[in-house]
């Protein structure tokens, strides 16, 4: 469960509000898709939920825990896949996963099983011994996804996770997200791929210039717009408005 109350953020170097008093509620067991044009504030919002950025005002709760007041406890609930997989190039894949698992205090058996299973599915097992610097973009992405799932997080947050994944890996990830949500976990992800949002999400939120202009199910969006159109067309009309 993720609750965002009246959250705003202005970058110290920027003049405009990247996020302007937004409110959001993502329920347990739900996949929430976060849509919006480039520069709308998706990544900024996600960075605030994961504690990378501090909101200027407002509160964020992850499973009822205030992210700013109890950061360590809140982050223990979260698995995070950032938009840019450029990380720790000097570590090997397995060293990275072990580091993440140690931080989340995952015991030896669970981490072995998770790594074994996920590395097999994502076909990166052979690369675990090599340094991350030698990975392709997609391989890095896969490694980070494995790291984000290693502690079976109640809240999974992904920033454009499908970018760079091959069709098979993208399919596997989507299946995994569905299964993870069905197990009672919360999933929040941003994407630019409308078909994915349309088929995968229980609910969507649309952000534009730092403000939420819609939250709800696809059917609700259709009702408001009084059109039985695809998400793509609805999105384009909504965003192009005014």
């Amino acid at each position, binding site marked *: 469960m993720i609750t965002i109350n009246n959250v705003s953020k202005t970058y110290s170097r920027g003049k405009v509000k990247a996020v302007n008093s937004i409110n959001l509620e993502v329920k347990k067991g739900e996949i929430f898709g976060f849509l919006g044009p480039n520069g709308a504030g998706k990544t900024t919002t996600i960075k605030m939920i994961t504690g*990378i950025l501090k909101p200027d005002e407002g509160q964020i709760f992850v499973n009822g825990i205030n992210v700013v007041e109890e950061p360590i406890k809140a*982050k223990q609930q979260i698995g995070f896949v950032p938009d840019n997989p450029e990380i*720790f190039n000097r570590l090997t894949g*397995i060293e990275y996963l072990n580091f993440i698992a*140690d931080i989340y*205090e*995952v015991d*030896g058996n669970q981490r*072995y099983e998770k790594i074994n299973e996920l590395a097999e599915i994502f076909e990166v097992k052979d690369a675990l011994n090599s*340094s991350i610097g030698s990975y392709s973009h997609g391989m890095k992405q896969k490694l980070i996804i494995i790291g984000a799932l290693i502690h079976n997080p109640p809240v999974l947050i992904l920033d454009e996770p499908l970018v760079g994944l091959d069709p098979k890996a993208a399919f596997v990830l989507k299946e995994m997200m569905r299964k993870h949500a069905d197990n009672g976990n919360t999933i929040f992800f941003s994407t630019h791929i409308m078909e994915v949002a349309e088929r995968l999400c229980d609910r969507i939120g649309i952000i534009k210039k730092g403000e939420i202009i819609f939250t709800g199910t696809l059917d609700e969006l259709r009702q408001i717009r009084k059109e039985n159109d695809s998400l793509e067309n609805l999105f384009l009309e909504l965003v192009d408005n005014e």
Partner: protein
Amino acid sequence: MNKAFSTIKFYVNSVFGFSGLFRDLKYDKKKAVKTLGLIILILFSFSGLITMFTAFNIKMYDLLKPINQQGLVVLNTVIISTAFTFFLGILTVIATYFLNQEGDIILSLPLKPWNLFIAKFAISYLSEALFAFVIMATGIIVYGVKNGEGVLYYINSLLITLTIPIIPLVIGYFLITPTMKFGKLLKKKDFIMYISGFLAIGIGVIFQYLTNQMANFDKNPEFIMQKLTAPNGLIDSTSKLYYPAVIAAKAIINNGKLESFIYLIIFIAIALCALILLLFTMSNIYYDTLIGSTEVQKSTKRMDEKQLKKTTKKRNLLITLVDRELKLMNREPVYFINGPMVIFLLPIIMGASIYFQKNTFLFDIKKVMNHPDFSYYLNLISIGVIIFLGASTSIAATCISREGRAFEIIKSLPINPKLYITAKIIHGLVFGILAAAIILIMDLALFKIGIISLLIILITSIILLTMIFIIEIFAELKWPKLNWDNPQKAIKQNINGVVGILGTMGFVAIFGAIIVRLNLKSNWLYIALILIPLIISSILYQKLLSYVDKRFYEIEI
């Protein structure tokens, strides 16, 4: 031609950040002041070198004036700055051979190979020109003032100075480019960085040798001068080896005459021809080596089930964090060379300098060892050296900046900031202890120090180092430099790192001066040196823990 200029401009800007500085001067005064401060600090660290060269040149001039050979001062300076720009030039050529900024985007632009090559050349040229300028100034000004030269002389000299680095750099590229091309092994970026690190040791040793030569100069100037200036002496034979130096010197000395002008033109022409020849013959080879430079060693070992099972063990959090620090620092060549390697490098250079003056040194040692206070001072000096070595690794002084953008990943993880920062102190201390071990082994081998002294040195230096590390980490938390594209910027162009090294040097020097001046000779000093820093460290450590708990979440990139 235009493209070449824009490429040069782009490269120079992205490496030296001049335009950033000008922008800051206009919009962000505070940042500009910081950058300028860093530049002044770096110049300041050259000051010893400058004084030494100047003093040498003044003496040389005075000795040569009676036999009307004072022009040799200029020739000697030209030779020295050429040699320096050659050796340092090779290092620069290697260090800047692959730049992070020139990823695939630069390679995909419609640029001719020679455009890229000359842009890269410009970068190494700029830093070498600065160096040549500093060294040449010591000789040119001494000669100019003493000989009462006019404006034309200085203009002439400036032109020559700016031309001096070109030929050595051309030779450097002629050596390095084919090596990169044909040595398959050398194609590995990391390997090259290590090679340049070892070259740095070599240059340190040569430098040490020169310094000792100049120091001996005081004792027996006539003899040294003879060695330098006699027919077939050092200057004579070097200038036979590298004739352009003679041309450059003649252009400066005979100024005002037509002859000097001709020599100037010849010197510049030779340099330009060399450069054109380089671009003509090496551009394509250079371009070839750039492609595929980002290749990294890939392990071919497949991970089997059993191995996986064995490696996936839960570990203590603090150990995990320290382990990560160690790996990230030691595996990034730029960090390793400018960090932990200093511990191995400095003793080697010190050893070399002892070796070069071993006759006098052994004699001096025997003399001082009989001094009643010898072991007292030896302990203090050892403590000073260990502290200096420990701080020279820059481990603590750059500990946050080195994370770079990955600091966001760290922030997204449920890491306890107190543990995180403690791991950084421990990381610094690991190498502090290593430095102590090296110095103590030297002490044992050379002076056979006792166990009590050994313990005093070890404990005192480690406690003092802890105190210094904590202060450095405070600075890093307050002013981290996280937004960089090239790891050089986190460690070499980081004001915290530079202040950390120079500050520690100053701290050690001031303390040493106080102890010598006040003639402090009491075992109470050790107790004070242990107890006071111990108390300060524990208070600072508590303060650090509460500071990091707040500050950790405020740092944004």
